[in-house]
Structures are given as structure tokens and as C-alpha cells.
């Protein structure tokens, strides 16, 4: 097991190097430079432009800039935002809980609906339910998040008035963050109405962000379940006279869930990518919105360090999934 784990960790190192190169290169491949982006229509006099270039270190050869960047990152220095002048890591730490909270609820939404729906579709294979579910899942998978989010806002918040339009919590609630998770903090302060408000603010963005993972999980559960239902031990269980619920719910489900766990782990990347759009629409103060703002401002430092931090998290989650998978399924460890 330890060897398996070390092996997995060793594999992360080239990935990490690759990510620093990508993060560094991509922002520089964007047309336009940060000094002009900051200047706006005012423009910058040539002498001042050179002065600023030197100040920010953009006059150095590109490989020197890269070396400097890697050197800083390796010592845990993720730099200071060009626009806000705050340390990137500090901003990231402040904003990340919001993204994590939203992602968590999106995932809960996706699993609570996706897994039972997938099981049911597998059991009733070929039925109208199965077919319409798979059709809907395809639509969900292909849904443009931006359009879907605005549609829900206009209908549920604008027309019906059931949910708040955007934000994390009602503006009348105001407390210093403890954990940074609104739902937890409101409970820690013992404010029930704040907790309800936080939940109601989560509904729409969680649905929007959870839609793609929901579709993926439903489809994955269905196919895994179908495969398992054809196995000999399931037939044996049935032959023993066990109830259908027990066969599906206990014998089949346990094994069917193994590939689903991997799928869920892999959805973390999707969630963080989806968070960029979802957070922008719902004014959700997380790292997705932060990245978008920084790209528009050509804030190189935030973009490259933010990308790196996000990549680190996705890698960590994937590592955990790999380990969990090995725990659930011992055959993997040997392979």
C-alpha cells in the first residue's frame, strides 16, 4: 500500500512542473500587457512604461521571470496581486471556503439525485423512465452554465420570488467569519435565520453547478449497476429468494459504487471549472470569480498563482480518490 502511495505521489511531480509552466506561459500568451491593461484609455507615456516594466520585472528575459517565479513558489511565496496589492495566498484563503461550500452542496445535490436515479434507471432498464432520464442527463451534461444560471434566476428569483437572486447570505446578517463556511458559521453563532438564509442562497448556484456532475453520476451509476446486475453473485442472491430491494440495495450497490466514487472524485475538476461561471453569475465570492476578474485585469501574479493553487487542490483530491479506490478495491493495489 505504501509503495502504491509513494508511486502515486512521485507521479505528481512532473504534473506539478507542467502546471507551473502552463500557468506561467498561458497568461503571457494572452495578448495585451498588464501595464497597458491597468492604464486604460489614459495610455502610458513611453518613459513611464519602461519604468513600470522594470518595476514589475517584465523587462527580464522570459526564462529569468520563470525561474524567479518557480523560486518564489517553491518557498511558499505566491506573490502579491498587482491590482489589490494583497498577498495572493491570503486572498485565496479568504475566498476558497466559499467555493468549497458551494462545491460541496453542488455535489450533495448531484449525488442525492444522481445515484438513486441511476439505480432506478438500471433496474427499470429500457423503460420510459430509463430513456427519459438518460435523455435528460444528456441535456444536463450539455447545458451551458451561463445560460442555465440566468434562466433559473429570472424564473425562480425574478418571476416566482422563491429564492434570492445572488450573494451568499441575506445582507442583514453580519458576523465575522470563523470557518469561512456560511452554513457552519451561522450555526456556530446560533443564528438559525442566518443559517436558513445561507441555505436559500445556496439553492440555485448549487443546482447550476451540480447539473453537469449530476448527469455524469446518473449515467455512471446506471452503467455500473447494469454491469453488476448481470454478475453471478447477484443471480445467486436472487435465487436465494432475497427481496429485490435487498439484492439491489446491498449486494449490487456496494460493488456498483466503486467506479462511481472515482467519477465523483474526477468531478472536482469539473466543479472548479464550473465555479468560474457559476460564481460570476451568482456574485459568489469564491476563487472562480476571483480568477475571472484577475484575467480581465491581466493580473499575472494572481492568475498564475491562482491556477497553481487550484491545480494543487485538484491533484490532492485525485490522490485521495486513488487511495480511497485502493482501499475499497484491494485488487488495484497489486496492479
Amino acid at each position, binding site marked *: 500500500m505504501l509503495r502504491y502511495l509513494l508511486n502515486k505521489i512521485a507521479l505528481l511531480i512532473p504534473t506539478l512542473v507542467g502546471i507551473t509552466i502552463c500557468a506561467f506561459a498561458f497568461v503571457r500568451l494572452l495578448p495585451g500587457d498588464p501595464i497597458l491593461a491597468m492604464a486604460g484609455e489614459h495610455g*502610458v507615456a513611453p518613459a*513611464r512604461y519602461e519604468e513600470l516594466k522594470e518595476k514589475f520585472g517584465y523587462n527580464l528575459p522570459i526564462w529569468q521571470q520563470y525561474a524567479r517565479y518557480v523560486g518564489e513558489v517553491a518557498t511558499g511565496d505566491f506573490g502579491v496581486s498587482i491590482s489589490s496589492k494583497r498577498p495572493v495566498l491570503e486572498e485565496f484563503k479568504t475566498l476558497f471556503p466559499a467555493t468549497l461550500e458551494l462545491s460541496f452542496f453542488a455535489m450533495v445535490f448531484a449525488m442525492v439525485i444522481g445515484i438513486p436515479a441511476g439505480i432506478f434507471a438500471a433496474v427499470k432498464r429500457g423503460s420510459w423512465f430509463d430513456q427519459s432520464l438518460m435523455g435528460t442527463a444528456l441535456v444536463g451534461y450539455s447545458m451551458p452554465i451561463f445560460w442555465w444560471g440566468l434562466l433559473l434566476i429570472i424564473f425562480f428569483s425574478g418571476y416566482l420570488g422563491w429564492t434570492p437572486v445572488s450573494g451568499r447570505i441575506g445582507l442583514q446578517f453580519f458576523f465575522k467569519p470563523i470557518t469561512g463556511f456560511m452554513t457552519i458559521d451561522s450555526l456556530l453563532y446560533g443564528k438559525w435565520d442566518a443559517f436558513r438564509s445561507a441555505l436559500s442562497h445556496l439553492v440555485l448556484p448549487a443546482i447550476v453547478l451540480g447539473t453537469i456532475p449530476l448527469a455524469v453520476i446518473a449515467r455512471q451509476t446506471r452503467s455500473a449497476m447494469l454491469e453488476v446486475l448481470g454478475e453471478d453473485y447477484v443471480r445467486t442472491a436472487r435465487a436465494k429468494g432475497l427481496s429485490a430491494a435487498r439484492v439491489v440495495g446491498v449486494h449490487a450497490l456496494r460493488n456498483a459504487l466503486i467506479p462511481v466514487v472515482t467519477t465523483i472524485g474526477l468531478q472536482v475538476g469539473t466543479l472548479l471549472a464550473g465555479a468560474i461561471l457559476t460564481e460570476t453569475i451568482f456574485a459568489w465570492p469564491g476563487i472562480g470569480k476571483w480568477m475571472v476578474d484577475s484575467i480581465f485585469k491581466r493580473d499575472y501574479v494572481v492568475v498564475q498563482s491562482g491556477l497553481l493553487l487550484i491545480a494543487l487542490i485538484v491533484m490532492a483530491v485525485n490522490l485521495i480518490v486513488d487511495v480511497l479506490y485502493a482501499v475499497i478495491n484491494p485488487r488495484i493495489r497489486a496492479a
Partner: protein
Amino acid sequence: MKKTMTFAAALLAASVLSGMASAKTLVYCSEASPANFDPGTTTGGNDFDASSRTVYSRLVEFKHGGTEIEPGLADKWEISDDGLVYTFHLHPGVKFQTTDYFKPTRDLNADDVVFSFDRQFNKQNPWNGDKYLPNLTWDYYTGMDMPKYVAKWEKVDDLTVKLTLTEPNAPMLANLGMDFASIVSKEYADQLEKDGKMADFSTKPIGTGPFQFVDYQLDSVIRYAANPDYFKGKEKIDDLVFAITPDATARIQKVLAGECDIAPYPNPADIATIKANNDVTLMDQAGLNIGYMSYNTTIPPLDKPEVRHALNQAIDREALIKSLFQDAGATPAENLIPPTMWSWDKDVKSDAYNPDEAKKVLEAAGLKEIQLWASDRVRPYNPNFQRAAELIQADWAKVGVKAEIVNYEWTKYREEGKKKDRPGAFQIGWTGDNGDPDNFFATLFACSAIGVSNYSSWCDKDFEDLIQKAKKTSDQAERTKLYEQAQVIFAKQAPAFLLAHSQVYAVVRKNVSGFMMDPLGIHRFDGVDKAE
């Protein structure tokens, strides 16, 4: 015991709730997060709304809803006859805000004023550089040419400050009403420096303005409370909240749902919906901006004014404006400056649509092909460069000129566009900073702006003489005459095609009173009230 505790908690909650009900809270759905709260270091309109216009005051202020200068922290001022020395007399007894992070021990005095400017240019000032915040550039201070014009700031006595210039510069007074010229507390700065917490100066602001800072949840909510010691009297609103909502559609839904009271910048497509709603008012004002298209006046045949006039005449401007701005509307531009600005010359008109005449001139000049530049960014003065380019291309095709559309991403676009030898016609625009005509004429078409923001590479001696003279004259009536003459020359020389001055919008709930649209594009909440 437990019961008593519960009862006490309920009582506490009830008293908090009732306290909340009586406090008047105004919620503003702002369009973006502020970079920080030190207006000397930032450049965005959203930064200024959140700092300079709420927390701070300046020596002089712009009249609410206008561009005229009125007294601020300075009750009155004198300008010496040679236009070089400005003496400001401060309002006595102005208090800096008292918060849980700073308790002032003295009133505002001349030291604060001198410090507010000194920190922006004096490299010896510890607040000028990295010791305060990394990579500080003081963009507005340098952008408004303050280092060139300011010789020194001096304290005469506690309530008198003297500013000496290197040469006469009439727009200086308007500059001092701008956001970067906000007056900060030297006492607070000294305290933070002593405590080794200098960065707090940009995150926990202290000023003399109508509202004081309470809290900022990054990228989410900013909270302010009315400043009880505000020298112009406490505001009617008790609490001011900025709910940061970047998406325009979500912003409008929020104001319609009553989640906020005021929201700026609706999408043009939503304007009809907003107008039909009975709970909100759509406020608008001609913005202090201009959308235009610069011809490179140094490259033949565009060096001939008649060719530039002909290109202008070939464009059906009315149809173009209608197609670009749709329901939002815009005022066709007759002059470089908008009609709301002083010195606007009503007798000057830009070229009328006349394709037949245009065709003759262009054929004679032999102009067959031209580059027409467009970018991807939505700007207040032009919501769609690409669409504008396509329509102009079609109009020019009708007079026998084939336009090739050149596209670049926004920052690269300006980088390429400002080059002296850039060919063809370049779409661009401008939003004014301080309401002074100099900020349009000199910034955009002075000879010294070639290669920076004079996209026409146009240097006309007569025009230049007039605007430079106007810059050095302090008498406004005299300046008006000079700018009127400059406008006549501009219209005759036509270094650019003038498109329009766009409308600026805000959506305001009906129970809000006293909110005014501002030609400078800022959002102010002093004087605003809300009926329950």
C-alpha cells in the same frame, strides 16, 4: 436556569432586531470589487465609489450631479494673479472618523493635506513605496501630470495650505476635486507606521467623508455607517451596504426583487423591462464621454481634411447610433466634448450624411482602400466596436471605399493603435476625469499626446496654441472663448469621426430619494434617503 438563558437570548435577539428595523439601510448593488480603499492608489470607478466618494472628502468637491467646483474641506481659496499660488483655507473643526480601529485625537489640519499629496510623489515619504504597499504606481497622480505642475505644498498655519505651481494650470482646481486628491489622516498614518501595520491604511480607511467604513467581506459585501461627525451634517441613511454583483442581469433582478435599492449599468436589452416596472425608476444622464474614430492624419490621403470630411459624410451616423445603442440611446456628438460640459459650442456641427458629395471627393482623392480598426471590449461610449466597424464598412463601400477590418484584443488594440504610423481609422473613445475641457482637448489631441492617447497623430498649431493658452488662463469666461475657437478648428480639420455621447443609467427603487446621476460616472450616496 436554562429557561432564563433562553429568555435572555430571545430578549437580546428581539432588541437587536428592533434596533435593526429602525435603522435605515441603503443597499447598492455595485458592479465590481474595489481593488482597495485608498483612492490614491486605485483607478477604477468602482474603487472610487467604495472609497473616495463614501469615506473621504477633498479640498474642493464637484457639485452633486454636475462638474462645477464647490467648496469641500476648503471653505475658500485664493489664486494669485500669476496663477502660480493657490491658498486654501480649511473648514475649522472637521473630525476624522472614529472607528474601532482608530480614535482621532485632533481635528483635520494642514498637515493632513500636505501629507495626502506628499505621499503620492515624494520618494522619501515612507508611504510612497514598497514599505506601504508593493508595486505602487500612483497612476492618477502621474496621469493627471501633477508631478509636472506641482512645485510644492506648504503648511502656512493649521488651517491654511499653500500650493505652488511650476507654471499656470487652470484645470488644477478640478484635479483637486478628483478621487486621487482625497484627504487622508496623517495621524492615522503615523499610528499605523508605528504599529508596523501600514498595509491597513488601504484596507481600513479613515477619512472625513459622509460614511465610515465598517467591514469588507472580500468580493462580497462592503458595509458602511453614517459618519456621526460629518462636517456637512450626518446623513439620513444609517447604514450603507455595497452588495457586489458583477453580472448585469443578476444586478437588475436584485433591484427588481428589492434585494438592493440602487443598481448601476443595466444591459441595454433590459431597459424596456425596467421601464415597464412600477417599483423602480430608470435614471439616465448624458455621460461625460465621447465615442470617436481617429484618422491617422499624417498618412496620405488622410492628411487632407477634405478626405476626412468625405469619409465622415459617407457614414449614416443616425442609423449607426440606433443600431449600436438600441433602447439605451445616445446623443450624436457634434463636438469632442459633451453638451453638459462648460464651453461646449452649440454652433459647431459635425459632418452631415451626404454620400453623393463624399463619393466625388473620395474618387478625386483616389482613396480606394482603408483599414478600419475594431476591438472586442464593450465600452460605455461604444457597446460594440465590431458591429460599428461592419456598418461603417458597408457605408464606405457605397462610396467606393473598401474597408478592411483589423481586429485586436483590447489591450493589444490600444498598444497598436496609438503608434504614430498606425494606418487608417481607429475606433476609440474617452470618459472624462474631472469635467474640465482640457481633460478632453489636451489629453486626446495635444501634440504631446501623440504616441500616447492622440490616436490621430494630429498636431495642429492653431489648435495647440489655443488649448495651451486655455490651460494657463484661470478666468473661466476667457477659457470658454478659447475652447470655442478650438472647437471650430477641430470641426474644420476633422481629425476624427465623432460618434456619440452615450447615456449612463442606474436603476433606483421608488422609495429612494435624493440619488443623482453623476456626469463623472461616480455614484454618491450623500444626500440619499429612503422611505420605509
